[in-house]
């Protein structure tokens, strides 16, 4: 068996994730509110005053909006996350907790709670006072001023941050909405997972329109 040239360590997990979080959960998401209006949609697909398909189109619109949110890593409507961090082992010191998804600006996210599992057995999730941390929008980090000294050594990822990624203003850009209409038209016209002929993408399609707004992920 060959030895890994990076140091003989077969497990490269820590190298591949340069951020301080270990696990992310999406815990709340708006799956009701429309982003593209019915007027925009029916004009796009030329149904216009025919309202008999509105229910179907509204469902399709939510799917399109979620697909674009996922593609761009951007919140068109607020999305709530729970993020887990390992034990830093630095009680009393200041640590930075990377925030996985954040809209631009100081109000890009709202921190709902920061908590940790304490050293009791069984361990209790303990909320940290909001006066001891702050959000750093310049680095998408949560700065925790003082790591508690009674953190559990048994829980895999004892730090838990719950936050809401607020709606991004980019979602209202006409170019982003046009990409949404293109994707909606594609899904409206292609309702099966298979086709008999190979489909071709148009120039300046969804990818081209959204590319400038897609974050570079290392």
């Amino acid at each position, binding site marked *: 068996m060959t030895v890994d040239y990076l140091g003989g360590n077969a497990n490269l997990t820590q190298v591949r994730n340069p951020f301080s979080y270990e696990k992310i959960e999406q815990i709340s998401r708006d799956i009701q509110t429309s982003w593209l209006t019915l007027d925009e949609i029916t004009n796009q697909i030329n*149904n*216009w*005053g025919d309202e008999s398909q509105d229910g179907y189109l509204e469902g399709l619109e939510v799917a399109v909006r979620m697909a674009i949110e996922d593609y761009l890593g951007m919140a068109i409507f607020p999305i709530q996350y729970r993020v887990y961090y390992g034990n830093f082992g630095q009680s009393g010191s200041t640590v930075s907790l990377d925030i996985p998804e954040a809209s631009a600006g100081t109000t890009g996210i709202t921190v709902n709670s920061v908590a940790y599992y304490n050293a009791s057995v069984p361990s209790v999730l303990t909320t940290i006072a909001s006066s001891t941390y702050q959000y750093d929008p310049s680095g998408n980090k949560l700065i925790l001023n003082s790591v508690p000294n009674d953190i559990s050594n048994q829980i895999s990822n004892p730090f838990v941050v719950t936050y809401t990624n607020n709606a991004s203003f980019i979602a209202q850009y006409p170019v982003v909405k046009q990409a949404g209409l293109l994707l909606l038209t594609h899904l409206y*016209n292609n309702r099966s997972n298979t086709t008999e002929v190979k489909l071709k993408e148009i120039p300046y399609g969804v990818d081209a329109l959204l590319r400038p707004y897609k974050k570079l992920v290392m």
Partner: protein
Amino acid sequence: MGIVRYEPVAINNVTNGVDSFGEYTTTITKWFDTRAVVSDVANNLKIADRYREYAELVQFRFNYTPNMSTVSVNQEDYSVTYRGKDWRITDIRESNDRMHITMLCYRAEPGVPV
């Protein structure tokens, strides 16, 4: 490829009845506006005896929606307003994948003296 020729049309309800004098009546009321791909517009003139008879034929392709499915099932109860005139449906084809409904529509001008 050119721009697809979508044009605004309206779907109308057509009600046939008999008035108090015993005459047949036709009432046309708009149901909804929509758009259709318009193609194969054909105008035809026939000179019959002392009259010119104009007949026009056009093909519309609509998205397959619940409303258009209803029109397809009861074609005699509906007409299409296109370019401000009323067109009767002669033929309807539903595509096999239920994505489009194609209609052949017809209208005739009243006879005009030659």
